[in-house]
């Protein structure tokens, strides 16, 4: 079973590597959205320093949502998904593996590039660790919750806009706590509480979201 899951993760990563423009689009989207904010709200460094965590978080959230519709769509279109559902590996685990692979190609790059963008916003150096850690803990939660939405909207017309309507309200706690981590660290309180909460959300979502997404896939494919 472990071998099957490893195989699945490698397959998804390989597919992503062959179609690397998909990955690059998400990262570029993230970079561009973040760069638009100073143009929109003005280049005042003091202002930018305060809004930086929030801007990076909102942009990361939108970018990871942009990639969501691809999570199951290709497998659904060519029938691979049905085979996975018929297979011996429990569907919940298959979903968990796919979500993990999806996060590796659409969430992790955002986490890695975020310090560079934080530099543009002149974020104090000591906040970098908290910001990156909060994104590293938070973006997998986004992928996990998003998997439920992606599974529910599979094969529907206008799935992209519908997906954002379903998923964005559910993202709110992650955004609030995630962006709050760096803010709390900036105010001298330390971001530990928020990081622990994000970790709790990750465990909670990791345990339940693949199961819910598997149920949603069964509804969508039947």
């Amino acid at each position: 079973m472990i071998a099957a899951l490893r195989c699945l993760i490698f397959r998804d990563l390989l597919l992503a590597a062959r179609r690397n423009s998909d990955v690059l689009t998400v990262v570029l989207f993230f970079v561009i959205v973040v760069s638009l904010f100073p143009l929109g709200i003005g280049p005042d460094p003091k202002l930018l320093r305060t809004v930086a965590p929030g801007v990076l978080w909102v942009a990361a959230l939108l970018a990871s949502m942009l990639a969501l519709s691809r999570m199951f769509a290709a497998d659904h279109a060519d029938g691979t998904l049905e085979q996975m559902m018929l297979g011996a590996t429990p569907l919940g685990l298959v979903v968990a593996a796919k979500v993990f692979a999806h996060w590796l190609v659409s969430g992790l790059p955002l986490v890695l590039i975020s310090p560079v963008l934080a530099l543009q916003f002149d974020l104090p150096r000591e906040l970098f660790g908290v910001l990156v850690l909060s994104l590293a803990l938070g973006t997998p939660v986004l992928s996990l919750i998003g998997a439920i939405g992606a599974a529910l909207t599979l094969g529907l017309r206008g799935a992209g806009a519908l997906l954002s309507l379903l998923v964005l309200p559910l993202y709110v706690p992650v955004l609030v706590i995630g962006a709050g981590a760096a803010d709390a660290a900036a105010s001298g309180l330390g971001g530990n509480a928020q990081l622990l909460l994000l970790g709790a959300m990750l465990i909670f979502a990791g345990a339940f979201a693949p199961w819910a997404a598997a149920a949603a896939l069964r509804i969508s494919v039947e």
Partner: protein
Amino acid sequence: MNINWFKYSSPQTFFPLAGKLALWFGALALLACAVGLYLGFFVAPSDAQQGESYRIIFIHVPAAWMSMFLYVVMAFWAGLGLAFNTRLSGMMASAIAPTGALFTFIALWTGSLWGKPTWGTWWVWDARLTSELILLFLYFGFMALQAAIDDPRRADKAGALLALVGIVNVPIIYFSVKWWNTLHQGASVSLTKSPSMAATMLTAMLIMTFGFWFYCIAAVLLRARCIMLERERSSDWAGQYARAAV
């Protein structure tokens, strides 16, 4: 004694019952709202600090309660539909959603009307306002998902799953925005401590709550009747009803 719990779980038997219940609850709602509004607007004393503007709470607070309560009821029917695979449960859930969204909107709207004279602003990013707004988005998401799916059985199940995911999230959303920012006054009415408002105000508010509650039951049942007719239009009983109505 042997009770048939599923007697009214089929649209055919529930349809006439829903019609009768809707009529009674509609009449009760009208009565309760008339009495509640009279008590609230003419009998209850004006507030020491807020003057007359506080009177919006007779609509605002019951609407806010109903908006949250209806989401729970919707998730309950949705869960029941998933568990027992009953057609009617899904129809009830989709019938509740628009009424729930309506009351969420009324709560937000009246809240901002009250906020302007009291707080001096139409909107603040406070925990309860924000979570109420997100509740509205959750209702919209539920309705949009059901509207996008053509097959009613799939729409029911997908909506049910979304409602259940939402109900798990509602407390998390509430507490996260609460920690994020809090300006809203604490709750004035609670079950554990004695209320901090005049007895007539409380009476009027409770009567209004019952009025809204009965209205919700009546509106949901009427909407459920429409959904039943629409989905069961090829069945005998729906055809007979339609012919009798013409």
